[in-house]
């Protein structure tokens, strides 16, 4: 990865993370109706912490319902978190001495999964792209000019497309427009929430390459959310694995894909379709659906589907511990914690030492 050019907006220098998330939490209270007695609580995102380094792409993977999209919406403050702190380049978001939410939204943008629903059907695409800059006080002519230049950047000829309406475009073209819209505020961080998942495979590849180019051209940082492990591997520098609202493993793409430590990550990877026969694993694939997020299992949430679950896994929740410093590898599993009480805990260490 080539070092991105120094951004004049940069404050803390290269070493300071662009985004530092601590203890982010969102529970959804299910109401049973009129009397609004809480019928249940969905622990959608349950206290996750991570950082995003300047210029990198952090991939987030997990099954549907694990809290990936909620995390994205929490970061954008489209929904309010119950707890947690988000620091953008040294400034805490949403506090009076830090960065206002409006200011944050100029620095951080998002591309949604549904390319059609995320464009206003009544506006020509030029207006959709220019909307953000207009909101932030840029004159109409200048905002339109920016829209045209961005359309060109995302590979759509502005002379042909500016006055078109979303229904006149294909899914791939619409997603290009959505990317242009996200870039219109000149953000430093862009969250892709399953941005290519609905696209046809051939179109997906084009859009992924476009994203790579834009990242270099604009010096962007990405959070790339997807359930598609191949795509995440292709795009990411580091990968974060979520399971039922918890962060279970995080590390460089090489570490996660080649030396996964968490049984869940291993199961996910073994279920991943691959052209390479050498990559076939003998790991048990995941069976069944994730448990009900309303009443998640005690202790380690994965234990109900884990082949190595022992008594300690039901009793205590595994902490996220460092597993390898060089690959920034952290994992939340009792087998990786020496002295946790799990029979494989020491063997785990031995294995790590041997590798």
């Amino acid at each position, binding site marked *: 990865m080539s070092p991105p050019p120094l951004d004049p907006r940069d404050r803390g220098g290269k070493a300071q993370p662009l985004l530092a998330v601590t203890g982010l939490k969102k529970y959804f209270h299910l109401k*049973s109706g*009129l009397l609004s007695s809480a019928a249940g609580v969905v622990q959608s995102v349950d206290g996750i912490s991570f950082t995003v380094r300047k210029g990198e792409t952090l991939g987030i993977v997990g099954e549907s319902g694990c809290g990936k999209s909620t995390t994205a919406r929490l970061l954008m403050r489209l929904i309010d978190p119950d707890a947690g702190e988000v620091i953008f380049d040294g400034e805490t978001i949403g506090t009076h001495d830090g960065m206002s939410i409006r200011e944050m939204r100029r620095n951080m943008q998002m591309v949604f999964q549904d390319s059609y629903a995320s464009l206003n059907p009544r506006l020509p695409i030029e207006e959709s792209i220019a909307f953000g800059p207009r909101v932030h006080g840029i004159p109409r002519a200048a905002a339109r000019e920016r829209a045209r230049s961005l359309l060109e950047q995302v590979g759509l000829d502005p002379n042909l497309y500016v006055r078109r309406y979303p229904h006149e475009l294909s899914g791939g073209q619409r997603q290009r427009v959505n990317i242009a819209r996200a870039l219109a505020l000149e953000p430093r961080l862009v969250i892709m929430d399953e941005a290519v998942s609905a696209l046809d495979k051939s179109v997906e590849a084009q859009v992924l390459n476009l994203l790579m180019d834009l990242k270099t051209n604009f010096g962007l940082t990405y959070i790339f959310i997807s359930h598609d492990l191949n795509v995440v591997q292709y795009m990411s520098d580091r990968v974060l694995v979520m399971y039922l609202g918890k962060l279970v493993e995080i590390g460089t793409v090489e570490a996660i894909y080649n030396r996964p430590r968490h049984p869940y990550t291993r199961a996910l990877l073994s279920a991943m379709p691959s052209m390479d026969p050498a990559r076939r694993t003998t790991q048990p694939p995941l069976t069944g659906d994730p448990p009900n997020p309303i009443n998640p299992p005690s202790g380690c949430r994965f234990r109900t589907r884990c082949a190595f679950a022992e008594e300690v896994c039901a009793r205590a929740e595994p902490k996220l511990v460092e597993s390898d410093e060089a690959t920034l590898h952290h994992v939340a599993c009792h087998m990786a914690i020496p002295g946790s009480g799990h029979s494989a805990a020491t063997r785990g260490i031995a294995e790590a030492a041997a590798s």
Partner: protein
Amino acid sequence: MLLYLIRRLVYTIPIALGVTLVVFSLVHLAPGDPISAIAPADAPPEVVERLKKDYGYDKPLPIQYGIWLGRAIVGDLGASVATGERVAAQVMVAVSNTFMLAVAAALLGFSLGLLLGFIAGYSQGGALDRLATGVAVTGISVPHYWLGMVLVIIFSVELGVLPAMGMGEGSSAEWKWDWLHMRSMVLPVITLSVIPLGIVTRTVRATVADILSQEYVQALRAKGLGDRRVLVHVAKNAAPTVLAVLGLQFGYLLGGSILIETVFSWPGTGFLLNNAIFRRDIPVLQGTILVLALFFVLLNMLVDLMQTAIDPRIKRS
């Protein structure tokens, strides 16, 4: 299911209370002092004061409402200002007469509407479909009080085969289910059935057409299921929507009969209301409207419950 039932009941109570509040405040919508409607214009001040006290109008509004509601709950709707009769008794007689019309009109309008709607939904674009669509739009566009007049002109004035007004010989107390009396129902029932006929036809047509275009119906056909068996599937899936419309329409029939009853001088709630309005007989007005509106609320709840019971997609837990 029981839990759902209870929840639905709990939801209905505030609505019903709101309805009583609206009906209660009708008195205060009326221009001037409510007592001026009751007392003779030249009544001395002390009589007016006493009347106010008797009717409870000297107390603050929330208390008045409380007293009124308390009486209404036990069935005491007060007495008519004009005739002194008990409102509750008057309303009961009127409601039962209105019911006769409404039930008959519902039977006629619903069955024709279901038939037409089904045929139209099945033969979309065909001649029958166009006929049904025409019937539907006519049904919902025709001023039914005028249609009543036109029917009277044709069948009473020109042909002289059916009575133009009333309930046949004697008052409603002497009603008998014989042709002599029942023939007086024919015109009002036909008139009243036109709106539900239009709306039911339209809804059923749209619902059936929508279901037929669904992939699962095509799958059923592809599986080689006969037309009759497909029809059963369609009917089952259309039932919840259609039922909801039928329920609402029955409620509207009760309200809508007011104008028709005036046209045919049918001694139902409409007739009663009409008289109450012209005599400024507020207790009768209130009582009639309260009974009809509460019935409508109850009907809505029943429709909801039935819809839930037959719709597999709605969870009943």
